[in-house]
């Protein structure tokens, strides 16, 4: 969508309007950050207008602003409506529904804790995911390549694979020395299973002719595995890595809510316990950004590694 060169200006005006509504229309219950919110909205509005006017219409930055301006406008409109139905009209009453300035308050007053929780979640998720991806990839490769590994691994994978990883929670928290190590195990398991299955299916769908070509050119086992089977299976492996990542998010949140006394999942639970709903929304937003960022990272790596493939799904 393109609103023309006036798009940026229109979006800026919408943000200015949001600022006017926020500051000019009195809150029913006083919120301490209403004023700051309107200042931020004003600044965003000015920046948008300034950017729209500063560049010539064919400048790449101007083109980007024009492309983004419908979204900037919609965000301002959404924010205004949200502001109106919460703080100004109380149609959506507190504490279950928080106005934007309450989220601002949550971020500004509780950022050290939120940051710590985000960091904690990232470390837990990263550790579990990387272990799971490595284990899943190597076991999938083994099952796809070696008859012996397939004989033992296939039935196990068939039995355990369909089980939701969260079903292991009671056993894991009981067996592992700490809830953190139990969570790493659960996240690794959730990641490993789809990665293993997809790697295995990728390796077994490599055309036999690839091996024929490599063998007549003098390739030995190691070359056939690392330079033929693995690259040929990579498109499947990345599907597995993506599925494993989604599963790992689920397990991360559940594990943090149930056992680990830190992280964004724990924060959500904690905020709910204190009826701090604004903090809950604030944490939810951080979590969404974190998950989306990680998926974006995975897709970036994939597009780089599989650049030879045509028609990749963009994220």
């Amino acid at each position, binding site marked *: 969508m393109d609103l023309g060169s006036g798009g940026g200006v229109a979006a800026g005006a919408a943000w200015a309007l949001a600022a006017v509504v926020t500051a000019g229309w009195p809150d029913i219950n006083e919120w301490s950050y209403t004023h700051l919110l309107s200042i931020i909205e004003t600044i965003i509005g000015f920046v948008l207008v300034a950017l729209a006017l500063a560049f010539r219409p064919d400048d790449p930055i101007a083109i980007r602003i024009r492309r983004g301006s419908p979204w900037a406008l919609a965000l301002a409109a959404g924010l205004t409506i949200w502001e109106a139905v919460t703080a100004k009209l109380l149609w959506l009453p507190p504490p279950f529904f928080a106005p934007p300035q309450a989220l601002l308050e949550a971020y500004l007053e509780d950022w050290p804790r939120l940051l710590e929780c985000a960091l904690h979640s990232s470390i837990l998720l990263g550790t579990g995911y990387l272990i799971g991806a490595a284990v899943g990839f190597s076991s999938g490769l083994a099952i796809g390549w070696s008859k012996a590994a397939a004989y033992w691994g296939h039935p196990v994978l068939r039995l355990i694979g369909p089980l939701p990883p969260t079903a292991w929670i009671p056993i894991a928290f009981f067996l592992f020395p700490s809830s953190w190590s139990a969570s790493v195990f659960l996240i690794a398991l959730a990641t490993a299973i789809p990665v293993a299955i997809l790697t295995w299916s990728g390796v077994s769908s490599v*055309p036999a002719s690839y091996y024929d*070509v*490599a063998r*007549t*050119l003098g390739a030995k086992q190691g070359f056939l595995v690392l330079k*033929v089977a693995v*690259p040929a299976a*990579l498109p499947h492996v990345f599907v597995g890595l993506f599925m494993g990542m989604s599963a790992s998010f689920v397990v991360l949140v559940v594990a943090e809510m149930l056992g680990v006394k830190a992280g964004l999942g724990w924060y959500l639970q904690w905020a709910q316990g204190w009826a701090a709903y604004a903090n809950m929304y604030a944490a939810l937003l951080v979590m969404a950004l974190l998950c989306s960022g990680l998926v974006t990272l995975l897709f970036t790596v994939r597009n780089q590694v599989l650049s*030879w493939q045509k028609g990749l799904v963009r994220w």
Partner: protein
Amino acid sequence: MVAVAIRPEPPANPGMAVAIRNINHHFALHGEHLPVLDTISIEVEPGELVALLGPSGCGKSTLLRLVAGLDQPSSGEILADGVPVTGPDPSRVVVFQDPTLFPWRTVFDNVALGLEAQDRLHKDRHRVGTALQLVGLSHFAKAHPQQLSGGMAQRAALARALVNDPRLLILDEPLGKLDSMTRITMQSELVTLWRRAGFTALLVTHDVEEALYMANRVIVLSERPARVVADVSVDRPYPRGRGDQYLVELRHHLLDLLGLGSNW
């Protein structure tokens, strides 16, 4: 090219002697016994270029796979320089009917595959460029196989084989996907190359003219299960003219043997 053809250099690489002795081969297709090769015996002298002609599905590719060592015959034996063939070896390189380039590798890296697999890439890297030049793909070294036409892919597959300096080159309809003009050029280039390098070559083709233009000997196979129907030596010097009267007559003879005589 022509200069080389008139005054050949001494062969760089002696060709391999291939002895195919009493080969029988069958497959199991849906639990049924499917005989494919019936007591095939062919002796190939070092440096010969032998063409195999036969109807589609008669077992030509199967025979080539056995010579390459990719499969073991149901009975009989194949000797390469007197040594039984038990598996593939880079001295016997195959150009498959389908180019089968690896889509994740560039054309250069595809051609370099054999050198890399044999741990020779660091020392023989320059050969890759030479091979690409030979098949006219120098400008496409960095391209990926999906960016090539069918004929270009086939030429890349040829370069991938040649780069290994094979003593036996096994060609399974290597020119099948080329347009007739490129095909004619590639036929003479292959002959030149073969005469210069001195390798032995086994060439499967559907094209009688191609066989006669290129080969020392033409072996005609029957319908499946394949038997040797005729073993004709083509005793004409290279480079051959396509209108050569002797070759034209031989062509009629071969078409008769293939049961196509009445069509011409």
